[in-house]
C-alpha cells in the first residue's frame, strides 16, 4: 500500500551550491542527499541515530542527517563529505592525514569521522587526545579500533598549527 503525501519545495545551500527540490515530508535529510542529489559520500548506517556514518555539517556544526527531515533543512547551509575536498578534487588536509595514517579500512565510517574531525578542528585547532576521543565518540568504527583515526586527527591538528604559524606540539 502506498500512501504518499504532497511534496514540499525546499531550497538550501549544499557544498556552496544552491539546490531547489520537491521532497516528501517523511524523507530524511540523509535519503535526500543520497537518493535525490546523488551525494552518496554521506553513508547510511543504522538510520536511527546510533552510528554517526550519516554526519554532515549544518551551518558548520555536525549533526546526524538521518535524524533530520529534508524539509527541516529548508533555507539552511550544509556541508557533506564531498564539500571537504578542495574544488579541484584534491584531498583536504584532514583527508590527507586519514590516508597517511591508515585511519580507514572498509571506509564505511570514514565520511562521518571526517565530518566530526573537521568540526572539531574548526572549533578547537589544538585539541587534546581526550577532546579528539570525545569528538568522535558518536561515530562507530568496526574496523580500525579508533587508534589510527585519533592519530590522523592529531596529525591534522599539528599540520594546521604549522600552517597557521603556531609551533607544532
Amino acid at each position, binding site marked *: 500500500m502506498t*500512501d*504518499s*503525501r*504532497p511534496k*514540499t519545495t525546499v531550497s538550501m545551500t549544499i557544498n556552496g551550491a544552491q539546490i531547489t527540490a520537491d521532497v*516528501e*515530508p*517523511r524523507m*530524511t535529510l540523509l*535519503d535526500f542527499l543520497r537518493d535525490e542529489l546523488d551525494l552518496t559520500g554521506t553513508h547510511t548506517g543504522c*538510520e*536511527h*541515530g546510533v552510528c*554517526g556514518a550519516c*554526519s554532515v555539517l*549544518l551551518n558548520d*556544526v*555536525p*549533526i*546526524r542527517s*538521518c*535524524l*533530520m*527531515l529534508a*524539509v*527541516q533543512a*529548508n533555507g539552511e547551509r550544509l556541508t557533506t563529505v564531498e564539500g571537504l575536498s578542495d574544488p579541484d578534487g584534491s584531498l583536504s588536509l584532514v583527508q590527507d592525514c586519514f590516508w597517511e595514517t591508515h585511519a580507514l579500512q572498509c571506509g564505511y565510517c570514514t565520511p562521518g569521522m571526517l565530518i*566530526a574531525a573537521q*568540526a572539531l578542528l574548526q572549533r578547537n585547532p589544538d585539541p587534546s587526545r581526550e577532546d579528539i*576521543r*570525545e*569528538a568522535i*565518540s*558518536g561515530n562507530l568504527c568496526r574496523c580500525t579500533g579508533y587508534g589510527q583515526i585519533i592519530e590522523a586527527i592529531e596529525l591534522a591538528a599539528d599540520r594546521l598549527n604549522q600552517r597557521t604559524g603556531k609551533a607544532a606540539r
Partner: protein
Amino acid sequence: MKAAAFDFVQPSSLDEACEHLSRAADDPQIIAGGQSLMPMLAMRLVRPGLVIDINKIETLSGVVEQDGGVTIGACTRQTDAETSPVVSGRLPLLRKALRFVGHDQTRNRGTIGGSLAHADPSAEICLTAVTLGAKITLTSAQGQRDLAASDFILGPMTTAREENEILTAVSFPIWAADGRVGTGFQEVSSRQSDFAIVAAAAQVAIDDDGICRRAAVAVANATPAPIRLTAVEDGLVGQEPTAAVVDPLLPSLESVLEPEADLHASGTARIHIAKTLVKRAILEATEDAAADD
C-alpha cells in the same frame, strides 16, 4: 527503517502551532530537535498523521535569567544551553549534566524541551529538572499552566502533558543566600555519552562553618521517573557532608528505589550503583562548594 507518510507544517507562531495541535483527527505530533522522535518514526513506533515542526517559533528559544530563576525555551539546543553564560553562572548543575547528554552531533540538534517531553527514565535533563524542582510550562489554545517537574514526569516516556499542549519552557530556581553552592553529577554508562545505567545529581549550599544548609539529591533510572531522595537531603542539612555523614544515609535508598533489571544491570546492581553515585555526587558537590569563591 523509513517513516510512514505524514503531513508537515512549520508554524512561525505558538498560536498557529496550538491550532494545528488541537486538530486531533490529524493525529498530530510535535517535532523539535527530533533526536528521539526521528528514530521512533523510522522504526514506526509512532505513526502521526501530521508532524508539527516548532523549530521556527523564535519565542521558544533562548536562556534568560528572570524572577530568581533561569528560564530556558523548549527549543533551545542542548549545545546552546551548555555554552550559555547564564547556565554556567547560575545553573552549574545543568551544565554538568549536559556534558553527559548524547554526542556533539545530537546535542547540536537536540533540545532541552524535547528531552523533558520525551521523558526517558535515564535522561540527564529530566534528572536535573527534578533535582532542582524546576517548573515546566505547558501551553495550549486554551491557555498556559505550570507543573513541577516531578508532577510532569510520570514514568518512562510518560508525562502529564495533554494531547493539545506544547511544552514551551522550563524554569529552574536559582539558590540564593544560603551559603556557597556546589554541584555534583555522576553517571555510569556502557560508554561515554551513552544512556545512563544509573545517574545521580546533588546540589548543596554550605555555610562558612562547612555546615550544609540546603540539599537537593536525586537519582535517575532506578525508578520509573527521577526521584528526589528526601531522607538523604534531610540527613545532610545541619551536618558537615563528609563520607562519615553520608554513609549511614545510603541504606534509605533501598526503600525508595524500585529498579528494573535489564541487559546492562540487575536491580540489585542498580541499587548498589545508585548508592555509590549518590555518595560521590554529594561529596563532589561539597568539594565544589568549598572551591567556589
